[in-house]
């Protein structure tokens, strides 16, 4: 085996070992933190039993104040974790600041104790708080920095243990004051353990000392960053308490408390990461992110499964039920904040100072959103979710695009890479003396690149083992090598890292799957139709499609096969859509990279992960997700074909185009644009270098012929469908969904609504009215387009968005029901690509680009959360919930009557376990014990009137037991 392969294997092995060790450390400390949290809960529970209700309330207020001081103090732990030596030296300074703060807080407590619901007895304990928590966090920070994780864990565990023991004993005798002293005693115990741990374990390297001077500012940045993170974490509850009504404030306090627990569990992760990241150890960040994802994701999943029970157990009563649906979203925000803390820690260690501004910006965004939408508990939570999403996205982007070896360890690693590259170059030059001579020159230049310690680094370079490190993906190519000892200014690392790209895309795909699975909903009418049709034998299904449906058979064929393989459960029915909407993520990357560049591709893929409309149709057993995927495949293949003239791309274009037509008839509109683009681009190409016009024309004609041949068998099928529908007086089936006050009206405002749906997803009518009112921002967009260049890719995408839209609008003038966003869904991925291009090129600085990407992702995130969890979304039909409720309350002798009659497939899919019949058919006999009436699609006035009539009749004959409301579904129970 060649030496380089051995070395590569050795590096990989080291990396794996490091990762495992990092995971173990994270697990150890996180375990201690969770134990500490559990201890706190036990302490609170014990106090609730020991103290009187009034006393417990007072202690709770004291604990809240304690926490309020403790959360910002975590910033000291961050600074200490980054530079333990600096933390040691600054201990006196911290004391000098915290003691007056303590005295001030004590004095303030005496003055405002009654207003806070505290007695004077707690004032002394309160007065010790700032100093105590500052010292505890500072010393724990030092322990993190010294990687003495066992001592950190000990300190974390000691605090609640002592608090519980001392607190219970004293509270029993001295009441609230005793409990408060127990809290202080716990803090002292944590401090004592932390102090004991110092000097026990030191693993600092020699280079670490050399870097100390440069880490001073970084430590301050770390402290500041974590301080701002604490603000992002806490300001929503402060805002909610200050502005919301009592009930709403209490609801938000409930979800905030649970969310706080989730954040608490991940609080230690960045501090454990920092020392390893400081050394540039591979795998440390992955371990930290993994731990944070597991803990945060666990919390999200737990609340998804059992939000209401959790709220009931934690806070009792049913008054928090209205906010239960939103709890997972808030947990998601907290989980994202946990990830953001890890990414921020990593960025701070890498010396990325702008991370502080990014966190500050997220705080400002959150504050702005709080003022804008924070008029309810859910609104406040959404503001935090948006800020957390934006921050996480910005930090992730910063990491993806900006990560470069700035830490000493990484620089040392990079030095080896450079040396290897130089050695390779020398080898390539035949080991000529002048080539070798560049080596010491370049190495001598390293100090200049590394900072101001040439002698140290020169020594480091000479003391390193003279092994030739294997080439890595990050290794610069020959033209990227240092010139005259200077590092090239541009970033070479991300350009060559296909592994990094694969990792990011893999994470995106996983996130996409998770998001699409988590945000589930009941089947609705059209999906039930899909289910019904796929239950038939294949030939029968085709007959039914030809005679009664309005769609081509492509999607149904795929679904038919899927159902045969995986059954007809909700997930199985939606599997093709889930697959297509997930595959859209990497496909957008591929298209974005081909049409623009890697960054655009990645951002477009990231958009597809959270784009509300993509998630929506990933959860619908209809053909729209396939439509989006195939549209991207077709445009990418066409673009590549026009660029390279290669036959395989023409072939792929023809196939994807035909598949589009077989999936949805309106896909013919973008296909017309694609076809028109071929001669136009060929004409533009006539005087340019590259592929000849003639070759493009020939390729285009052959591809078009092939596509036509593939579509041809569909023509008689479509003609038959059209004839049958026309003769039945149906024409194309009118949409039966609602989604806004402008439904079925062709107007500019309605077009704006459709555009809003396409970008930000489906929302309640009130939200849509508000969103559409923001149209002046389109003027801004138009102005910002001034002076922007226009590439061939952009022109093609714009045409593929707007020409089909215009054609569909023109058709809608005659048939208004065609004015519906889902018939133009091919535009959505194209818009995502254009949006990605805009946010990655319009801002002039990397900071601006990151901010804009973060804002876009946050907007998508908020849109997604509102779409999925806001019960007022008029496109959400909870047939499953309604029918399950009926099943739970009925016996087999009972009867369910439903309106409209199209619900027959849904009633068959979610069998309620009783006799069912259409409303308007025979009314149940008097001997039937109970009659249930289910109605949906209330906007159909004829059906609604029939339902009202039947209800009046039933009221005359029977007693109305209850009326149950679900999303867009109502059920009446008579006996």
């Amino acid at each position, binding site marked *: 085996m060649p030496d380089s392969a051995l070395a590569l294997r050795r590096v990989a092995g080291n990396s794996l070992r490091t990762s495992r060790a990092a995971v173990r450390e994270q697990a150890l400390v996180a375990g201690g933190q969770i134990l500490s949290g559990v201890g706190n809960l036990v302490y609170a529970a014990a106090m609730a039993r020991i103290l009187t209700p009034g006393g417990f309330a007072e202690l709770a207020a004291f604990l809240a104040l304690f926490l309020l001081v403790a959360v910002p103090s975590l910033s000291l732990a961050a600074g200490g974790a980054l530079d333990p030596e600096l933390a040691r030296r600054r201990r006196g300074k911290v004391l000098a600041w915290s003691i007056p703060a303590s005295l001030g807080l004590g004095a303030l407590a005496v003055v405002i104790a009654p207003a806070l619901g505290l007695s004077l007895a707690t004032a002394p304990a309160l007065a010790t708080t700032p100093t105590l928590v500052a010292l505890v966090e500072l010393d724990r920070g030092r322990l993190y920095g010294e990687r003495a994780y066992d001592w950190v864990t000990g300190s974390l565990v000691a605090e609640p243990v002592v608090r519980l023991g001392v607190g219970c004993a004293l509270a029993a005798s001295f009441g609230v004051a005793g409990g408060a002293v127990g809290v202080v005693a716990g803090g002292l115990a944590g401090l004592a353990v932390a102090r004991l741990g110092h000097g026990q374990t030191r693993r600092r390297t020699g280079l670490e000392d050399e870097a100390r001077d440069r880490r001073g500012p970084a430590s301050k940045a770390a402290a500041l960053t974590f301080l701002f993170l604490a603000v992002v974490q806490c300001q929503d509850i402060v805002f909610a308490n200050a502005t919301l009504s009592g009930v709403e404030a209490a609801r938000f306090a409930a979800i905030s408390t649970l969310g706080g627990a989730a954040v608490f569990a991940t609080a230690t992760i960045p501090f454990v990461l920092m020392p390893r990241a400081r050394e540039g150890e591979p795998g440390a960040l992955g371990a930290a992110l993994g731990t944070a994802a597991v803990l945060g994701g666990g919390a999200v999943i737990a609340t998804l499964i059992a939000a209401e029970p959790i709220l009931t157990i934690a806070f009792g009563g049913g008054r928090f039920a209205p906010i239960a649906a939103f709890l997972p979203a808030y947990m998601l925000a907290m989980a994202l904040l946990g990830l953001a803390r890890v990414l921020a820690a990593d960025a701070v260690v890498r010396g990325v100072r702008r991370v502080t501004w990014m966190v500050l910006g997220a705080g400002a965004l959150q504050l702005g959103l709080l003022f804008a939408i924070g008029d309810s508990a859910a609104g406040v939570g959404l503001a935090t979710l948006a800020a957390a999403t934006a921050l996480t996205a910005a930090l992730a982007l910063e990491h993806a695009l900006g990560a470069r070896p700035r830490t000493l360890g990484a620089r040392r690693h990079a030095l080896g890479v450079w040396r290897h590259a130089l050695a390779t170059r020398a080898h390539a030059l035949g080991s000529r003396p002048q080539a070798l001579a560049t080596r010491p020159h370049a190495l001598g230049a390293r100090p200049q690149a590394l900072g101001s310690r040439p002698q140290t680094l020169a020594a480091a370079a000479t003391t390193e083992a003279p092994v030739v490190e294997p080439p890595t993906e990050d290794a610069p190519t020959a033209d990227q090598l240092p010139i005259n000892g200077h590092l090239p200014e541009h970033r070479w690392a991300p350009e060559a890292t296909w592994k990094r790209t694969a990792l990011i895309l893999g994470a995106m795909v996983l996130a996409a799957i998770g998001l699409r699975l988590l945000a589930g909903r009941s089947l609705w009418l059209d999906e039930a139709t899909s289910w019904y049709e796929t239950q038939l034998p294949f030939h029968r299904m085709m007959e039914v499609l030809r005679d009664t449906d309005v769609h081509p058979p492509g999607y149904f064929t795929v679904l038919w096969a899927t159902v045969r393989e995986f059954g007809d459960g909700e997930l199985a029915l939606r599997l093709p859509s889930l697959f297509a909407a997930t595959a859209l993520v990497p496909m957008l990357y591929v298209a974005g990279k081909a049409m623009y560049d890697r960054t655009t591709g990645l951002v477009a893929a990231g958009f597809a992960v959270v784009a509300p409309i993509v998630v929506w149709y990933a959860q619908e057993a209809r053909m729209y997700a396939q439509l989006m995927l195939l549209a991207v495949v077709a445009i990418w293949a066409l673009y590549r074909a026009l660029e390279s003239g290669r036959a395989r791309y023409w072939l792929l274009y023809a196939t994807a185009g035909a598949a589009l037509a077989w999936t949805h008839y309106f896909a013919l509109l973008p296909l017309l644009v694609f076809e028109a683009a071929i001669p136009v681009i060929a004409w533009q190409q006539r005087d340019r270098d590259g592929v000849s016009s003639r070759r493009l024309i020939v390729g285009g004609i052959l591809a078009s012929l092939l596509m036509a041949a593939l579509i041809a068998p569909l023509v008689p099928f479509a003609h038959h469908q059209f004839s049958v529908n026309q003769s039945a007086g149906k024409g194309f089936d009118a949409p039966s969904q609602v989604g806004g006050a402008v439904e079925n009206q062709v107007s500019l*405002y309605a077009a704006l609504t459709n555009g809003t749906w396409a970008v930000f997803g489906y929302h309640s009518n009130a939200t849509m009215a508000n969103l559409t009112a923001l149209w002046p921002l389109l003027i801004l967009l138009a102005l910002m387009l001034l002076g922007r*260049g226009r590439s061939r890719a952009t022109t093609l995408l714009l045409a593929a968005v707007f020409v089909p839209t215009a054609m569909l609008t023109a058709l809608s003038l005659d048939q208004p029901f065609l004015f519906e966003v889902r018939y133009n869904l091919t535009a959505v991925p194209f818009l995502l690509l254009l949006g990605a291009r805009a946010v990655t090129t319009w801002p002039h600085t990397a900071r601006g680009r990151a901010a804009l990407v973060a804002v876009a992702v946050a907007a998508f995130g908020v849109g997604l959360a509102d779409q999925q969890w806001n019960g007022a979304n008029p496109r959400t039909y909870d047939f499953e919930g309604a029918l399950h409720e009926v099943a739970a309350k009925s016996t087999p002798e009972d009867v369910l009557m439903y309106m409209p009659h199209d619900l027959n497939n849904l009633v068959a899919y979610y069998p309620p376990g009783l006799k069912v019949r259409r409303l308007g058919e025979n009314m149940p006999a008097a001997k039937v014990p109970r009659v249930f009436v289910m109605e949906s699609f209330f906007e159909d006035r004829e059906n609604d009137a029939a339902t009202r009539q039947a209800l009046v009749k039933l009221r005359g004959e029977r007693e109305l037991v209850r009326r149950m409301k679900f999303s867009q579904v109502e059920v009446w129970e008579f006996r």
Partner: protein
Amino acid sequence: MGVPVSRGSPDPDPRLRAPDWSPDPAPPRRLRLLALLMVPLALWYFGWLLQPGRVGVPALFALLVAAELFNLFQAGGFWWTVTRRDRRPAPAPLAREGAPPLVDVLVPTYDEPLEVLEPTVAAALEMRGARLVVSVLDDGCRPEVEAMAERLGARYVARRERAGAKAGNINSALLSTGSPFVAVLDCDHVPRPDFLARTLAPMVDEKVAFVQTPQYYANARRGGIAAAAWAQQALFFGAISRGKDADQAMFCCGTNVLFRRTALESVGGFPTDSITEDFVLSVRMHERGWETRYLPEVLAVGLGPEDMASYVSQQRRWARGCLGAIGPVLKARLPLRKRLHYLLSSAYFLSGWALLVYMSFPVIRILTGAQPIAAASADQFLVHFAPYFCTALAMVVVAGRGAYTFGGFALAAANFWVQILASLAALTRRAGRFVVTPKRGEGRRQPLAVAPALVVIAALLAASAWGLAHQRSPSTLNNVAFALLHVTVLASGARWALMRDGGAEAELEDEREARPRTGGGREARSRTGGGREVERHPGGDPVGEARR
């Protein structure tokens, strides 16, 4: 495109590189088609707006209509100007027989650094096609400038009394020189060797008083304010100047210009009673029947303002001078067409008032509920306004060949207050002061230079926050969105004042980062190409409608 790679390396003089902009004409058919389209669209919008039932609060409605009509006047003037085509034959190259003509090249200077001045003088001495005398007109009386002139072989002229600023300096030099042609170059504009050969050709026509060429900002490549200011210049020296030239209404822009001495003498030299002496000089020359020519070729490369204070100082001078010239223009004995061109150019500097009106509407609506328009749904408004607005923007894009950027627009918008102050000064007849535009940025933040814009931003944000805190109805959100539109535009224009080096440094960094990623595609190139509006007046404010 030579952008310095290392911050540590000395910055090469960008004026010594070839310009990357060419004032090629836009496709005339496309322009005329758009202009034709604009007429019914403008009628469609104004026909809807001016219906009696549309009046909300009368005073606000009157303000809105005034602002809209002003914009229509400017926009209409722009469409009219850019569709004009010069049908005169291109000037033939100068005949080679006989002695080359004599030309005095005047380079006025006051306090500009030597490193700015020296390349200009050196390049002026290298010009071909004429027998020339280069005079450095130093109002700063600096020995080092005298030494430099002597070293290079130029004539050094210093005045004892510095009356009349730049105009006085040139007039003084005219007395001590005698060539039949006089070229004027600002001290930062480095001429190409063929400057005189190209500008002398149109002078064959004895009626031509001067030949003006574009003022190209080489430092636009550095981004920031210089790029945004160039975006404004590019539109003016592209489509607008071509259109003016077609009507023989091109005016002198003070530099990169070749005069006929007899023409100058016929109007008594440069007027010293105006701070835009070149503009007033042109009016006087046109009054006396002289013709003027615009040569759309970059024959000299200069430097644009690099910091906000410089830009504000430049704009203030132009605004005060051009607005002060409205009266003389109205009184001047000029053909209607020429008078209209001058009026369009002067009146451009009233755009700040229109912007102020538009910015005040969302604040008034949020705080008081009063609004200018009544009995109109958003859908109705959009149906009438959107086609007009979008086509107007398309016109700017096509006419400017994509050179006009959002940065140029935002920079002009953020300095709306300059135009308001200038118009007040013109109204009260307060005398303006000639201030030399600094050629180098101060390299520090200049928040005071955009303080009014920052105040307006704060007011818009405060009104928005107040509105959202009290009511979150669609109408409030609509006005908040308008407020945010203005905030974004103003902040985009003002941000450079809050950055060191007028934002140039940050954008350089960006360019460095972007280069390997974008591969210098068409989009990437267009970002450095710059674009925009008016140096002296764009003959219209084509995008003013957006400032609602």
